[in-house]
């Protein structure tokens, strides 16, 4: 079981990217660098397979993930008919894992999109406006970051009981933007001091134009890295919640809830937890590798001389 440790939470929150490179990587240059990177390619391939499985789940899954069969087929070990075996109520584990990818990845992507949006807007506003507003926002973010994520999520969940998948996305997303906001705020505050920003103001550009044209494009690299890292993180958070029984409502099942369903049989039917666990670990690992290689490729040292 991938855990939701404070360390993994902190890894996302404390991520500080290198100072924006000069000149920034052009997409074409970036791709040229990454294409030669074997680790990156393998991670991307793994991700491709998993995302592909999620998208084409109805075509790939051998059975309906909710279909139940003759009770004699319950808890069968992996076989030609059921590659990942069957669960206590005779459902096909492979089909459940493939459909589980849909749930897990969708929640992660949507939650990241939400947290990046909120984090970027809040962080950019604070960093760009500066002054006491910035100080207020920065201290608030520090305060919010000091609350353990799991504690926050569990207390909210225990108030509302079972949440719909949509509400779950909103909850994970709205509690995940603090780190992003801090990251973006720092970047924007640094960019605001750059000469070309002053030059643009000196030539009469409005604040909004300065922000959109001269600050935001430089946020692409750090946000891209934060986004990939965030996807891995969100998958883990969601799996953790589902494992604890606060995740997606039945009959939907994410990897976390599949692992939860199989935990009582861990000693007799290892395939119930091993396969969804493997899917989870592989996905998060691949996402983190992609993120790491991206960050390396985006750092100035990796750029070929202009």
């Amino acid at each position, binding site marked *: 079981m991938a855990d939701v440790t404070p360390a993994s939470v902190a890894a996302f929150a404390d991520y500080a990217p290198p100072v924006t490179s000069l000149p920034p990587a052009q997409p074409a240059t970036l791709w040229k660098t990454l294409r030669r990177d074997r680790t990156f390619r393998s991670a991307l391939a793994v991700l491709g397979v998993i995302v592909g499985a999620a998208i084409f789940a109805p075509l790939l899954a051998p059975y309906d993930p909710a279909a139940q069969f003759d009770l004699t087929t319950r808890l069968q070990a992996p076989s030609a008919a059921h590659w990942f075996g069957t669960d206590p109520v005779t459902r096909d584990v492979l089909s459940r894992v493939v459909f589980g990818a849909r749930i897990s990845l969708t929640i992660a992507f949507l939650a990241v999109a939400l947290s990046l949006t909120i984090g970027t807007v809040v962080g950019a506003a604070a960093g760009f406006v*500066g002054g006491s507003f910035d100080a207020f926002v920065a201290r608030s973010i520090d305060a919010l970051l000091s609350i353990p994520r799991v504690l926050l999520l569990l207390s909210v969940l225990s108030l509302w009981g079972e949440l719909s998948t949509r509400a779950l996305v909103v909850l994970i997303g709205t509690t995940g933007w603090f780190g992003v906001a801090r990251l973006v705020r720092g970047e924007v505050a640094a960019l605001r001091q750059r000469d070309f920003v002053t*030059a643009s*103001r000196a030539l009469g550009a409005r604040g909004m134009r300065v922000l959109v044209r001269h600050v935001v494009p430089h946020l692409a690299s750090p946000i891209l890295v934060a986004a990939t890292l965030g996807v891995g993180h969100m998958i883990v958070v969601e799996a953790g919640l589902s494992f604890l029984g606060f995740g997606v409502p039945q009959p939907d099942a994410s990897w976390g809830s599949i692992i939860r369903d199989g935990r009582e049989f861990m000693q007799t039917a290892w395939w119930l937890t091993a396969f969804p666990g493997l899917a989870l670990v592989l996905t998060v690992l691949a996402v983190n590798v992609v993120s790491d290689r991206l960050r390396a490729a985006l750092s100035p040292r990796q750029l070929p001389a202009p």
Partner: protein
Amino acid sequence: MNERNTLLAVENLRTSYRTTHGTARAVDNVSFNIDAGEILGIVGESGCGKTATALSVLRLIDPPGRIEAGSHLWFEGHDLLTLDEEAIRQVRGRRIAMVFQEPMTALNPVFTVGDQVAEVVRVHTSATRREAWARAVAMLDRVGIPEPAIRARSYPHQLSGGLRQRVLIAMALVMRPALLIADEPTTALDVTIQAQILELLQELQREMGMAVMLITHDLGVVAEVAQRVIVMYAGQVVEEAGVQDLFSSPRHPYTRGLLRAMPRARRAAERLQTIPGTVPSPTAWPAGCRFRDRCADAFEPCGNPPDLFDLGGGHRARCFLTQVTAATAPTEPSMPSRI
């Protein structure tokens, strides 16, 4: 010189920054005028308040810095300090433009240079993208960039330092401002390129009839292009004179020190002299004359702050010695008064 046409009158400008070590009074009661069409040099070493003065004129001082009450910046009939944000934005780039020191960092690396010149046009006019681009290319041509239509599509890192500085000049001048503030425009460039850029600035200045506030620590640059010079030290104006006057009869010991520290062709064999000591901290300017600790000629009156004494002929200096010589030798032929 009664028909002097004052373009910008800086009056008692005080700009300070709040720091953890106290308030740094970067610009401390600075007053001067710039006439339409003239080139005024502002000289001084790093940290003397030159750049803070320039940024103050455009109201680009960000917190923790602020322009203190009582300061006035009269320009084209308004006090720039009383304009609202939108009005000062209209002034920036259109009536007063600025060229920055570092051509490497003052251009945005993610846009083409043509785009960045065109942006200034689009900020201030309702020109379409195409019209703005055409004006940008014409301006790049005007500042001497070869093949402007092609170079306009280059990114800053694809151009040399000299060309980048030309791009910055194009950005500043594309709206034909009445006043150009050039902050160390040649400092980051090779000597040969420096001369070209100065020549270009002079040429454009004559052609457009604009005034230039040329900030530099290089007296050679001032001698070459400026008509009038202001010497700044420790946040104050210490001497102001016509360029001939300043080089032939500097009246402030600091100015003399700067001149002695300047290499000259005719004195090639001589060792250059330096000014002993360092500039005092702006959070704690010394009482009295701020140059006293570094001045070989300091005497008792220097414990009090000297005024900027008017020496006639537009020559002013912040030094008590000017008063002593005037008293002991009242008939000393100062510059013939042109008033």
